């Protein structure tokens, strides 16, 4: 109302009166409120009503109620069931025309190919960098078998996750995600456990990101520096050469804390060190980004992830074609340059794959926008096939192309880009792309963590700057500590994968499925046995990580 009697451009009077305290500022409210004109033609007797009476009075109420609370307060926001249906809603132009809102239901439906691509895009993460290492840890043949087997297992678990809301009768589950299903069956315990384990995967991913970002930033700096020193180009390097080929890989990263090649101890190496200084430089860049109130700005850059993965695939193909295949099959015993085909360290691969194939916390939402819902299972299977194929391609090619006569296969690093020297141009481009992609995804992950933690603890996504700052410092601190003292992303990935996989992939979906079958009276002995076996597999997966 006041807009009508005040010039639209004018000095903003300080809204210091009590009626505007606590809100984001009176200027904020005013800029957000649309210009509104009561649509009835008040000059002539227009018999045709453009807007139904209910919609008009609801609009009046919503307008008034919005003045009574802060702009971000949802206390007096209209709930969904009172808002008129789309047929009754018009967008009114002050010049006289009225448009109906198009049926929003159609707008979000995607054809199958888009859904498949969205799932592939979401699942493709930084675990792709660890797949060659994982295959090496399990042995080439066993690694391929495990990759196929784990992919199928996780596909089945994903299938029972998307089936779970539909099995619930009597309640409208159209807006539910998997934590809501858990809450339905197991109460608060189910909700909290699914949220906590989902957070484990998110925080684990953020720590891995920090380690990788330090790594890529370091190598980028090294590349630029080495251009001045004209190092000779080797195709592959073994950054941490060891005397025993069969030794446990996770120990190597504790030795060799600075760059492997340039050992001059110059001041550049002193200030540009992968584990001592770069993690700290990143704090200056990323901590402010984490404190942004809204992450929608960063969501624009998700296409970078796709480009990075495609570039990685191209890079791997080119490198493999340059080097050719170096494969020798030693089945069980160790040898100087090769690893056995079947190794006892295979749980490390399963741990990595659990995180690599993980999408169970958001698959329901992704599938919701599929146009032909009856094809959901087929599309999910195709997506998993595509993801598995990509991982297999990258893993096998890197493993096979690794030049084994001079170097041992055991040298394959948890981040396979580490096996390339800093001066390699193609890999430099890959590192820069991935670095930029991670810088844009990191605040998104931080936002998801914040929303889930703050929403559950305080009921409010932004309870105060101090709360957010404390949370961000904790997360960043974890990343920095890991980067400085234990930057082995293979271990971080397999542990966080096994932990969150236990709950969200094996335990909760299997339990939910068994409960729903029992409610319908269709729980057979075979089914119960099989799903209990799934839970045992999940537990075994986690336990095995500790013994490696």
């Amino acid at each position, binding site marked *: 109302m006041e807009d009508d009697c005040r010039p639209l451009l004018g000095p903003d009077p300080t*809204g210091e*009166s009590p*009626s505007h305290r*606590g809100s984001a500022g009176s200027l904020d409210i005013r800029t957000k409120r649309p210009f509104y004109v009561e649509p009835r033609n008040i000059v002539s007797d227009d018999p045709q009503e453009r807007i139904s*009476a209910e919609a008009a*009075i609801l609009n009046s109420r919503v307008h*008034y109620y919005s003045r009574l609370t802060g702009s971000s307060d949802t*206390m007096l926001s209209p*709930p969904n069931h*009172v808002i008129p249906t789309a047929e009754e809603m018009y967008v009114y132009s002050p010049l006289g025309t009225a448009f109906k809102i198009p049926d929003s239901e159609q707008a979000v439906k995607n054809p199958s190919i888009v859904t498949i691509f969205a799932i592939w895009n979401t699942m493709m993460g930084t675990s792709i960098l660890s797949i060659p290492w994982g295959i090496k840890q399990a042995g080439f043949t066993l690694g391929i078998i495990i990759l196929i087997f784990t992919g199928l297992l996780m596909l089945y678990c994903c299938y029972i996750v998307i089936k779970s809301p539909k099995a619930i009768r009597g309640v409208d589950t159209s807006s539910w995600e998997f934590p809501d299903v858990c809450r339905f069956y197991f109460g608060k315990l189910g909700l909290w456990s699914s949220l906590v384990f989902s957070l484990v995967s998110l925080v684990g991913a953020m720590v891995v990101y920090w380690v990788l970002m330090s790594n890529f930033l370091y190598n980028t700096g090294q590349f630029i520096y080495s251009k001045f020193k004209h190092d000779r180009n080797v195709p592959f390097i073994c950054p941490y050469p060891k005397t025993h080929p069969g030794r446990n890989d996770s120990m190597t990263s504790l030795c060799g804390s600075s760059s492997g090649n340039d050992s001059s101890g110059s001041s550049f190496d002193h200030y540009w060190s992968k584990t001592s200084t770069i993690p700290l430089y990143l704090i200056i860049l990323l901590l402010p980004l984490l404190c942004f109130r809204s992450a929608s700005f960063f969501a624009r850059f998700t296409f970078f992830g796709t480009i990075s993965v495609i570039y990685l695939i191209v890079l791997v193909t080119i490198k493999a074609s340059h080097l050719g295949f170096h494969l020798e099959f030693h089945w069980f015993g160790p040898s100087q340059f090769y690893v056995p085909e079947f190794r006892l360290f295979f749980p490390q691969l399963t741990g990595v794959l659990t995180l690599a194939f993980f999408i169970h916390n958001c698959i329901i939402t992704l599938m919701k926008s599929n146009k032909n819902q009856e094809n959901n299972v087929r599309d999910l299977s195709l997506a998993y096939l595509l993801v598995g194929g990509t991982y297999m391609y990258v893993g096998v090619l890197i493993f096979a192309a690794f030049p084994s006569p001079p170097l041992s296969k055991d040298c394959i690093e948890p981040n396979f880009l580490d096996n390339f020297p800093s001066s390699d141009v193609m890999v430099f481009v890959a590192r820069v792309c991935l670095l930029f992609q991670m810088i844009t995804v990191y605040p998104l992950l931080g936002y998801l963590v914040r929303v889930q933690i703050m929403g559950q603890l305080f009921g409010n996504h932004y309870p105060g700057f101090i709360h957010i700052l404390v949370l961000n410092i904790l997360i960043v601190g974890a990343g920095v500590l890991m980067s400085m003292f234990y930057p082995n992303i293979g271990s971080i990935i397999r542990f966080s994968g096994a932990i969150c996989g236990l709950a969200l992939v094996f335990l909760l979906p299997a339990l939910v499925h068994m409960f729903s079958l029992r409610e319908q009276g269709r729980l057979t002995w075979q089914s119960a046995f099989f799903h209990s076996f799934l839970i045992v597999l999940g537990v075994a997966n986690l336990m095995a990580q500790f013994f490696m």
Partner: protein
Amino acid sequence: MSSSAMKKKVLLMGKSGSGKTSMRSIIFANYIARDTRRLGATIDVEHSHVRFLGNLVLNLWDCGGQDTFMENYFTSQRDNIFRNVEVLIYVFDVESRELEKDMHYYQSCLEAILQNSPDAKVFCLVHKMDLVQEDQRDLIFKEREEDLKRLSRPLACTCFRTSIWDETLYKAWSSIVYQLIPNVQQLETNLRNFAQIIEADEVLLFERATFLVISHYQCKEQRDAHRFEKISNIIKQFKLSCSKLAASFQSMEVRNSNFAAFIDVFTSNTYVMVIMSDPSIPSAATLINIRNARKHFEKLERVDGPKHSLHMRMR
């Protein structure tokens, strides 16, 4: 002894979370600060010194259900709370799962009313009805109404079903106000005469603080059934804006080639809105008419004497 020394109260009570604060905010146009969405109950009474229907003070209490601390505090303050009560408005959440408990607390409030202010009027609002499916609303409300009327004996309670998302809230509070005005039928007759004399299309009488329609007269069918609530919302928003400048709203004239509308202070408890569809009548004429009518209506309020007039009730 004039009761202006001891203000009469309107008690707005109900379980924590039943919607009293939102209701109070909407009806009285008070801003709700963000931290009012609290995780616990109201620890103390929320006073709101609104001049509602004269000199009534609105008191808002959470009643029952939280913990022994609240129970004890409530019990020890009981006489204080329930003394000098003019109106008790009790809010029930229709979605509440603890019907027995709700009724129990309601009854204890009634007992306290019977002891301390036996002349108080009791109103029960069954709130949040928008959460019930439409075809079941009448049924559920009838059930509750029967229970409440039965439990309230010997006091008589009037029940309404309300929701902030439809017109029922505004209508319920308008009915409450209508029942609290002592000589309302006489007011209506006089209002009709007034309207006919000045040849107005429609004349409305609003309560001053809340712009709830007390009574109205219209000479022909109007299109918009929700116009009272819309006007009330518009004026309350305008009052909120005025309060930002520490100004108070007194009167308004809106005019175009088709009509002229006048909103002005009328008596000490009311505002009047006059709508003239003959734009040839000059504003000054209508304003003089309103001024003269004002004197007449004020006399009406005073003539009925201290026994009836709200702002001079003796206790």
